[in-house]
């Protein structure tokens, strides 16, 4: 791909999660030219890895199916995966962006027939399962992957496995000679929809995520609950594969904590309330969920969902920030703390502990262009010129608000290319 496909009328959207797809599509469906770049091998981002959404308990892949159909049907959007922004030059209305394209080692001939995966022996931690399971080093990220093409893990390049994969492909879709390239594209406006990442749970030492197998994060729990996930949708705990029926959900795992994240991550309370549904779905009245919280933050109509969960006799609420977790020989976990409503000390045993892990910007640790303003947590607060934040890159947002924010960002980008076009028209 070369710069020729893009002009200063083009809107560049960085990040192919729900926010980036939304920003790209909303602009494109207004007739604008859009390039959507995604660092990973597929669009979909983190929402594609969720099992259900609150409060409707519907499936993220449903919305993704619609968005993918919109992308397939819309010639204004060009998607570039495995593409990372390296440098942005220029100013509002006229940017030049250098992109690094990582080799996929699979070209567009790929029919997703899966023969290469069968041929390869090497296995890697599956990043699309938060490393909860392994996958062959030639793999399709997931069933909703777009583009629907396999990808070879760089670790097997130069090994016999790579050759096996190549040999197995009848459609010479595997190109081991692929190299990393850099391309420059022009854009009038840039939307940064770079999203979020879960806070590093190992750093919350009292909870022993790095020491205790059965302490997991909320994003990992989504994979356990997912029928397409590593346990086929069964809530099996990592240490011994035993069914986890008595589950603790610890809120503010990293959030609202000056030792970790200053901010409240907004979604975690709803996420845990939602996840108590998974437990109930799995075990009915034998389920036992306990939510340890400081404040239950479910605003607007979402309150309904909270009230509904509150009525569920299998769910318990304890106002307390858990002080520490201790592991027992059988892998069970004892939570120590104090219920501050009236001061009741507890030491409660659970099969599994789910940390409602906080959100931090995916770009933390990555250098963004200077004229992007970040807040104290690294979220994009605003930007001078023709660059705009969208979705969870701007603030910890739920999917609905992220899509709103992305739609707004699309209009701001359109305003930029509109101005440049009218100015040029005037000339």
């Amino acid at each position, binding site marked *: 791909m070369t710069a020729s496909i893009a002009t200063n009328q083009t809107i560049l959207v960085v990040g192919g999660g729900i926010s980036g797809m939304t920003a790209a599509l909303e602009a494109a469906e207004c007739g604008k030219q859009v390039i959507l770049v995604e660092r990973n091998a597929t669009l979909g981002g983190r929402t594609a890895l969720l099992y259900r959404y609150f409060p409707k308990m519907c499936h993220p892949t449903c919305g993704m199916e619609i968005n993918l159909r919109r992308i397939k049907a819309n010639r204004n959007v060009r998607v570039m995966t495995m593409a990372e922004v390296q440098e942005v030059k220029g100013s509002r209305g006229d940017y030049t962006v250098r992109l690094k394209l990582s080799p996929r080692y699979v070209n567009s001939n790929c029919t997703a027939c899966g023969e290469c995966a069968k041929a390869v022996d090497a296995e890697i931690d599956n990043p699309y399962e938060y490393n909860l399971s392994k996958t062959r080093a030639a793999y399709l990220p997931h069933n909703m992957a777009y583009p629907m093409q396999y990808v070879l893990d760089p670790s097997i390049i130069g090994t016999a496995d790579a050759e096996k994969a190549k040999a197995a492909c009848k459609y010479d879709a595997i190109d081991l000679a692929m190299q990393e390239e850099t391309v420059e594209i022009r854009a009038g406006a840039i939307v940064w929809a770079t999203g979020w990442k879960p806070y590093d749970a190992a750093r919350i*030492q009292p909870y*022993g995520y790095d*020491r205790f197998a059965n302490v997991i994060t909320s994003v990992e729990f989504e994979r356990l609950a997912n029928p397409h996930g590593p346990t086929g949708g069964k809530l099996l705990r990592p240490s011994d594969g035993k069914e986890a029926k008595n589950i603790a959900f610890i809120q503010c795992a990293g959030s609202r904590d000056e030792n970790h994240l200053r901010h409240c991550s907004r979604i975690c309370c709803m996420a845990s309330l939602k996840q108590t549904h998974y437990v109930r779905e799995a075990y009915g009245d034998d389920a036992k969920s306990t939510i340890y919280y400081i404040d239950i933050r479910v605003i607007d109509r979402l309150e309904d969902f909270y009230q509904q969960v509150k009525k569920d006799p299998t769910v318990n609420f304890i106002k307390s920030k858990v002080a*520490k977790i*201790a*592991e027992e020989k059988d892998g069970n976990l004892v939570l120590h703390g104090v219920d501050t409503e009236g001061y009741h000390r507890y030491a409660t045993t659970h099969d599994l502990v789910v940390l409602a892990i906080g959100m931090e910007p995916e770009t933390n640790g990555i250098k963004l262009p200077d004229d992007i303003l970040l807040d104290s947590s690294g979220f994009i607060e605003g930007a001078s010129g023709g660059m705009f934040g969208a979705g969870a890159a701007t603030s910890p947002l739920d999917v609905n608000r992220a899509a709103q924010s992305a739609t707004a960002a699309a209009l701001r980008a359109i305003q930029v290319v509109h101005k440049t076009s009218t100015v040029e028209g005037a000339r």
Partner: protein
Amino acid sequence: MAKKNYAFYPGCSSQKGASASNFVPSIEVMCDKLDIQLNEIPDWNCCSASIGYGEGSQLSRLVLNARNLALVEQNMPGQDLVSGCPACWLATRETAEKLHEVESLMADTNEALKEAGLSFKGTVKARHLVEVLIEDVGFEAMKEPVVKPLEGLKIAGYVGCQTNRPFGIAGESFENPQYLDKMVETVGAEPATGYEQKVTCCGGALAFSEPEKSQKQIKDIVESAYDHGADMIVTPCQLCQANVEIYQSEINKKKGTKLSMPVVYYSQLMTVAYGGTAKQAGLDGNVLRPQKLLDIASK
């Protein structure tokens, strides 16, 4: 190589005939082997420890510690203040930081120091001896002098509180610090991994005032060491050493347990590993004889 100089703050319990006095020779041997030169602070005074707050006002406690810092600043330029006792170190370091943060307190402190003919500018760094070992010497260099690796010894690294919180060793976790286990490895012994009581509080000064409550803590600390098959406990804290060691007999009396878990100070381990005698290691000063360590020392 030239020895590195430090202003040494032994602390009250290291005075001759005091509870930590038996560690002094082992500290000397250890430092000698590691080219550390400890120069005792002339006429140092008590840090007021963690219990001084009851009677002693904030400023009184600050000036006590400031005096030691001032003595170093004045008489031992360029040297870090180093203590083997976490309480001394913590009180001093907290003072140094507080005076650095709050100007008015620095002013008040100096006004008081003047009465003792001293002044403090705030240039002295307060460090724990363990910090010096890890940051200035390093684990590799700690290994070098080892002539009698402590093979066959399983040791529970009991870090306790004040070397660990609130400052701790840079880069270490408050809940699960690793450095003591690493030190145990450097001297050729096996650390009791998964020793979950490693940062449990021994009761500190409340071992005196609230014996029952503290002894419950100590019981957990010792029993867990047994559970993990440890031959002895090692600690970087002199008060922890004393509390955890000497109250075992009390606990046995009250609870009918048979606790007899030797508790050593890390410099005792290193002295033995570095070829020092039982006497140099001050093992005769241990109330509960660390037999296996004695055996290696006498080899």
